[in-house]
C-alpha cells in the first residue's frame, strides 16, 4: 500500500516549498501561496490518515537521519485517526489563514518568519503520530513545540503580553520535554532498544515500579501538552496571545497529540497497567474538566474562555482514557474498548467545534480588535454568518443534542454507567463521581457558551468597535463553513467514523467495540442495550419546531410583527450599558464556587475632604486569579529568583575568591586521595 508514504512525502515536499515561499515571496503573494501549500500539507496528512483508518499500515526506517539514533516511522489506525484529524483541521485553518493574514499587514502572521514556520508547524502536526522510535518522536515533538512557539510569538510587536506568554509556553513545554525524555530514556534503557517495536516487546520484562515511574513521568508530560490541570498554565496564556489561526491549530490539533502520546504509551507500548495508573489519570481528567470550565465561566476574554474550555474537554477525554485503562486493568476489555472509542470520538468532535469556535473568535477579533466579551455585543447584526457558525460550534461545545459534542459525551456516559458491571470498590466509588463531574462540567459549559454567544453576539453593541464591526471576508467564511459542515456531519451521522474508530481501538490491543456503526444512523452499544440515533432526534426537533412555529400563525389573526420599545420601567429607554456583561453573567456561578475560585476584590472609597460621609470616588477592583498558579507556580518562581540572587555572590569578582575555589578543590581532592580512595 503505497498511498500513505506517497501522501506523506507530498505533504513534506509541500511544507518545504511553503517554508521557502514564506521566506522568499513578497507579502502580496506570500500569504495566499503559503496558505495554499499549507492546505496541501493538511490534505496530504488527511489522505494518509484516512488510508490508515481504512486499514492499511506502513512502516519504514531511515538510519541516515537523526544522528546517533536513526529515524523510524510507522503508521497504524491510531496514528491515522490523529493524522486525519490534524490534516482536516489544517486544511480548513490554512484557508482561513489566507483571509486572516491578508488584511493584517506584513507583520504578525503575515511576516516572513511566521509564514515560513506555518507550513512546518502543519507538517509536524501531521507527522508526530508517524514517529515509531523514541528519538524520532521526541525530535518531531520538539520541532512542533518550536514551530508553535515561534507562531505564538508572531505578534510580539503588538503586545508585550505576547512575550510573557511565549516565555511561559517555552518553559512549560521544555518541562514537558524533560519529563518525557526522562520517562522514555528510562523505558528505553530498561528494554534495551529505542524503537517502539523494541519497547513494546520488552515492556513486560520491566519491573512494575519502573513501569509505574515511566507512566507517571510520561503522563505528566503529555498532560501538560494537552493542557490538563495542574500543568495547564501555558494554555490560557499562549492560546489567546497567538494569532487566531494558530490558536485554532494549537487547540484543535496540537493538544490532541498529548492524548495520542498518552494512549500510545499507556496502552500500546506499556501494554496497560495496574488500576492506580488509571485512577490517577481519571483524577487529573476530572480536575481539569471542572477547573477548566469554571475558569472559562469566569473568563471575559473570549479566546481565554475558549482555551479553558479546551482544558475542560481534554479533561473529559482523559476521564474516558482513564476509564478505559481501568476497565482493561479489571479485565473487561469490551467495555474498555467502548470507553476508549468514546474518548477518541470526543477528540475528533472537540477538534471540529473548537477549531470553528477559534476561527469565529478570530473573525471577531479581526473585525473589531476585541477579545473582551464585556465590550462586544450585538455582533449578530453586522456579522450574521460568523455569529451563526459560532452558535453551531457552541452547540457542539455544550454537549446537547443535536450538537456533535453530545454524541461522544453520551458514549462516554454510557461506558461509565455500564462500568459498574466491573468489580472493585475503587470503580464503584470513582465512576459515579466521574459521571457527576462530567455532568457538572456539561452544565457549566452550557452556562459558559450561553454567556459567550448571548453576551458576545446578541443584545446591543457595548463599544464603538463592536458597533463598527464588518463581516469577515469570504475566504474565512468559507473555511469556517467547512468546519461547520464537519461539525454537522459528526453530529448527525457519527457512524461514518465507526469502522475507523474500531480499527484505532484495535491498534492498541483492545477489541473494536462496534459501538458507533449502522451506517452512521445509529449509535448502538452491542453488549449493553442503549441506542441513540442523532439523525432521528434532529429530524424530530425540526418537525416539532416547524409545527410550533406554524400552528400559532394559523390560529392567530394578525401575522405582521410590529416593533415596540423595550419595557423600561417607565424611565427612559434602557441603554446598552444596562445590559448584562460577561462578568455580571458569571457572578452567581462565582458566588456558588467561591471556595474553589477564591476571587479577589477590593473597594476603596475616597470621601471628599470636608466630611467622611460624602463619597467623592469609589474604586472597585475584582479579579478571579488562576488559583493553581497562585499556589503552585508562584512559590517556585520566587524561590528560583532567590536562588539566582544568592548565586550571584559566587561570582563576586575577587581574584582571590576565584583562586580560592581552585585551592580548596585541590586540597579537598588531595585529602580524599591521601586518606585513601
Amino acid at each position, binding site marked *: 500500500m503505497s498511498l500513505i508514504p506517497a501522501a506523506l512525502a507530498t505533504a513534506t515536499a509541500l511544507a518545504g516549498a511553503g517554508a521557502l515561499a514564506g521566506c522568499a515571496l513578497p507579502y502580496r503573494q506570500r500569504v495566499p501561496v503559503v496558505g495554499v501549500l499549507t492546505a496541501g500539507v493538511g490534505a496530504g496528512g488527511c489522505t494518509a490518515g484516512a488510508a490508515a483508518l481504512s486499514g492499511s499500515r506502513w512502516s519504514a526506517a531511515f538510519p541516515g537521519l537523526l544522528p546517533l539514533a536513526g529515524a523510524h516511522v510507522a503508521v497504524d489506525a491510531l496514528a491515522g485517526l490523529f493524522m486525519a484529524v490534524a490534516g482536516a483541521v489544517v486544511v480548513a485553518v490554512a484557508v482561513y489563514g489566507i483571509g486572516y493574514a491578508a488584511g493584517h499587514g506584513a507583520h504578525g502572521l503575515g511576516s516572513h518568519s511566521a509564514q515560513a514556520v506555518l507550513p512546518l508547524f502543519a507538517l509536524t502536526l501531521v507527522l508526530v503520530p508517524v514517529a515509531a522510535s523514541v528519538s524520532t518522536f521526541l525530535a518531531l515533538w520538539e520541532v512542533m513545540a518550536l514551530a508553535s512557539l515561534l507562531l505564538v510569538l508572531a505578534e510580539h510587536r503588538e503586545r508585550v503580553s505576547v512575550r510573557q506568554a511565549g516565555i511561559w509556553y517555552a518553559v512549560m513545554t521544555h518541562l514537558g520535554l524533560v519529563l518525557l525524555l526522562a520517562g522514555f530514556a528510562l523505558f528505553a534503557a530498561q528494554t534495551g532498544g529505542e524503537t517502539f517495536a523494541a519497547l513494546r516487546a520488552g515492556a513486560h520484562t520491566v519491573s512494575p515500579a519502573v513501569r509505574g515511574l515511566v507512566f507517571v513521568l510520561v503522563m505528566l508530560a503529555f498532560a501538560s501538552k494537552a493542557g490538563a490541570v495542574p500543568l495547564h498554565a501555558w494554555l490560557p496564556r499562549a492560546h489567546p496571545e497567538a494569532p487566531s489561526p494558530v490558536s485554532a491549530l494549537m487547540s484543535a490539533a496540537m493538544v490532541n497529540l498529548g492524548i495520542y502520546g498518552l494512549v500510545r504509551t499507556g496502552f500500546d507500548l506499556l501494554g496497560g497497567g495496574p488500576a492506580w495508573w488509571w485512577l490517577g489519570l481519571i483524577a487529573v481528567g476530572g480536575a481539569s474538566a471542572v477547573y477548566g470550565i469554571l475558569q472559562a465561566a469566569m473568563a471575559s476574554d473570549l479566546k481565554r474562555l475558549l482555551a479553558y474550555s479546551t482544558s475542560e474537554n481534554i479533561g473529559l477525554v482523559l476521564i474516558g482514557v482513564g476509564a478505559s485503562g481501568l476497565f482493561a486493568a479489571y479485565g473487561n476489555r469490551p467495555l474498555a474498548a467502548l470507553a476508549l472509542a468514546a474518548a477518541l470520538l470526543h477528540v475528533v468532535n472537540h477538534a471540529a467545534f473548537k477549531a470553528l469556535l477559534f476561527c469565529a473568535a478570530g473573525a471577531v477579533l479581526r473585525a473589531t480588535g476585541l477579545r473582551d466579551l464585556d465590550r462586544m455585543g450585538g455582533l449578530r447584526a453586522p456579522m450574521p454568518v460568523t455569529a451563526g457558525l459560532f452558535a453551531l460550534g457552541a452547540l457542539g461545545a455544550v454537549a446537547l443534542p443535536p450538537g456533535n459534542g453530545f454524541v461522544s459525551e453520551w458514549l462516554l456516559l454510557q461506558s461509565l454507567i455500564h462500568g459498574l458491571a466491573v468489580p472493585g470498590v475503587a470503580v464503584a466509588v470513582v465512576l459515579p463521581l466521574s459521571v457527576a463531574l462530567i455532568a457538572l462540567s456539561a452544565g457549566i459549559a452550557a452556562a459558559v457558551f450561553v454567556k459567550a454567544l448571548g453576551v458576545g453576539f446578541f443584545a446591543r453593541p457595548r463599544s464603538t468597535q463592536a458597533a463598527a464591526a464588518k463581516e469577515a471576508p469570504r475566504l474565512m467564511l468559507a473555511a469556517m463553513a467547512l468546519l461547520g459542515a464537519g461539525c454537522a456531519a459528526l453530529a448527525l451521522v457519527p457512524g461514518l467514523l465507526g469502522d475507523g474508530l474500531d480499527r484505532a481501538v484495535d491498534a492498541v490491543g483492545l477489541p473494536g467495540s462496534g459501538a458507533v456503526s449502522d451506517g452512521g444512523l445509529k449509535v448502538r452499544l452491542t453488549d449493553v442495550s442503549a441506542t441513540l440515533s442523532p439523525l432521528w432526534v434532529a429530524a424530530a426537533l425540526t418537525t416539532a419546531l416547524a409545527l410550533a412555529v406554524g400552528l400559532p400563525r394559523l390560529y392567530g389573526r394578525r401575522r405582521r410583527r410590529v416593533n415596540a420599545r423595550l419595557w423600561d420601567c417607565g424611565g427612559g429607554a434602557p441603554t446598552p450599558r444596562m445590559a448584562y456583561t460577561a462578568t455580571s453573567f458569571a457572578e452567581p456561578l462565582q458566588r456558588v464556587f467561591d471556595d474553589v475560585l477564591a476571587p479577589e476584590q477590593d473597594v476603596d472609597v475616597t470621601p471628599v475632604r470636608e466630611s467622611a460621609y460624602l463619597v467623592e470616588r469609589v474604586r472597585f477592583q475584582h479579579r478571579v486569579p488562576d488559583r493553581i498558579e497562585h499556589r503552585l507556580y508562584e512559590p517556585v518562581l520566587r524561590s528560583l529568583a532567590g536562588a539566582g540572587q544568592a*548565586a*550571584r555572590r559566587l*561570582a*563576586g*569578582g*575577587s*581574584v*582571590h575568591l576565584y*583562586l*580560592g575555589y*581552585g*585551592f580548596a578543590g*585541590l*586540597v579537598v581532592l*588531595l*585529602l580524599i*586521595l*591521601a586518606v585513601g580512595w
Partner: protein
Amino acid sequence: MNGGLYTQLLDLACGLFLLAAVLVLWVRELAVIVRIFALQGIALAALAVLLGAHEQRWDLIGVGIGIGLLRAGVLPYLMRRALAAITADRQRYGTAVAESRETQPLVNVAASLLTAALLTLLAYAVARPLTELNPTPATRALPVGLAVVLIGFFVLVTRRRALAQVVGFLLLDNGITATAFLATSGVPLIVELGVSFDVLLAVLVLQILTTRMREAFGTTDIDDLRELHD
C-alpha cells in the same frame, strides 16, 4: 661522589628549597621576596646539577644550569624591573612603600605559616605512594616539591600585590620542576624547553599587565580588581 654525601647535599638543597618557599610567606618587603625567590632558583638549579652529577648525565647538568640562569637570573631581574617601574613615579606621592610591600595579606603571616605547615603535612601524605613506587633518596624528597606547589598556590590565593601573586605562580612552577627532577630527573628536553619558554612568556605577560594595571587603577592591589562580577 659517594651516596652519603649525595644524599646529604640533596636533602640540603631540598631543605633550602622548602625554606625559601616558607620565607616568601614570612616577609612583607616585595624586594626581599624577589631575592628569596632567586635563592630558591639557585637551590633548584643545585638540585638538578646534583642529580645530573649523580647519574653522570651532562645534559641534565646543562638543563640545571639553564634553569638556574632562568629562575635565579632572568625572572628575578624582570620582577625587579617591574617593581622599579611600579615604585618609580610613586616616590613623590610617598605611596612607594605601600606599593612595594605586601602590607596586609588576606591571611596574616602567623596563620599563613601554620597553613604552610599543614600543607607540608598534606604533601607528605599525598606523596606516600610516589615514594613507595621507587624508594630512592631523590623520590624520598618528593614531598618537598609537592609542598612547595601547595605553598605557591597558597601565596597565589592570599597575597594582594600583583608581584606577590607572580611570585606565588613561580613558586608553584618551581615546585613542579623540582618534583619533575626528583621523580624522574627531568621531563624530556623538548617539553622542558617548552615549559621554561611558557613560564618566561607568562611572567612577561604578567609584568606588562602589572604596569597596565598601575596605569588603569593607580595601584597593583589585586583586591581592587572587582569591576567584573555578576
